[in-house]
């Protein structure tokens, strides 16, 4: 086991985030950010949303979605920069930016949802 990389951990976040994003995000984005603004769907009332997000299960789901989606991005984008722009020599910097960004986003999500 020694010398094996920590990559499996990041990959597990990447792949579960990718699966979740693929299943949930297109419909969610279409409903919230296109259907509602265009009036195809009625915007949910404020109290309804407060009640919905107030529920711990909803908050947990939202947190999982945002955190995993962030790490999905962090991991994938890291390799896009490595390979797509041939920046492999900036290994440390890119990894820090990508996973660091994802960590910050996750922390903010945790804070927002915890204090909702």
């Amino acid at each position: 086991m020694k010398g094996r990389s920590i990559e499996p951990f990041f990959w597990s976040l990447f792949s579960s985030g990718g699966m979740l994003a693929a299943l949930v995000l297109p419909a969610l984005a279409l409903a919230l950010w296109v259907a509602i603004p265009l009036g195809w769907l009625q915007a949910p009332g404020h109290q309804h949303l407060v009640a919905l997000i107030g529920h711990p299960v909803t908050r947990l789901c939202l947190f999982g979605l945002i955190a995993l989606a962030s790490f999905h991005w962090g991991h994938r984008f890291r390799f896009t920069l490595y390979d797509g722009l041939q920046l492999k020599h900036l290994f440390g910097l890119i990894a820090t930016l990508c996973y660091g960004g994802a960590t910050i986003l996750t922390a903010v999500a945790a804070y927002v949802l915890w204090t909702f």
Partner: protein
Amino acid sequence: MADSVAIEVRRYRPEEKSEPYWQRYEVPVREEWMILDALNYIKDNLDGSLSYRWACRMGVCGSCGMMVGGEPILTCASYLADHLPGPIRIEPLRGFPVVRDLVNNLDDFMDKLTAVKPWIVREQEQPLSEGEYLQTPEELDAYKQYSMCINCMLCYAACPIYELEPAFIGPAAIALAQRYNFDSRDQGAEERMDHLSRDEGIWACTFVGECSVVCPKDVDPAGAIQRYKVKAMTQWYKSMLLPWGERKR
């Protein structure tokens, strides 16, 4: 059908020129000819100095892989007539150092291949008196697809990651590791995992997927690598949650 076609070969003759150059030949078109037949025609009739590898002419030996029109193919398995009207550009497989003309140096691939131990690894060999290792059709089916590999290296030529990062172990070697991992007689999965679950191993792969597209034997190396990642991931979590389970080796 046209009766002749232009073939442009990317030639490299270090004793004459430091850089590769294109050379054009006119060859007749015959319905039954493969690309390789056209090359043989050039070699026999037009220019004996052209160098390239081939052997079996039937898609088994895996030595005649070249880039034709930018795509890695087995030249013995692709009709000349399918590439008309030409000119048909023929280059050595990408990603490898060129020795001369269409001949690549294969040391890197050979080293990577042996490093994954593509043979049956046993902790203890069963004595001869106990007979052979038996296998059910289902057990054979579990790895058969991966055993079809002919080491033609088309998958390496299609893989941009290998080109960018020559340390990457690469598609066929990883698929062959899986061929033995999935073999019920084999016990070497742990050793191979140590070698393959590294940054230059399965984790360098970003699932471009082109290796599986060009593979002439439907090995699906891209799939083999993703399955390996799933396995490595579950093992990683297991070793994190049950650190004592891992120590016993």
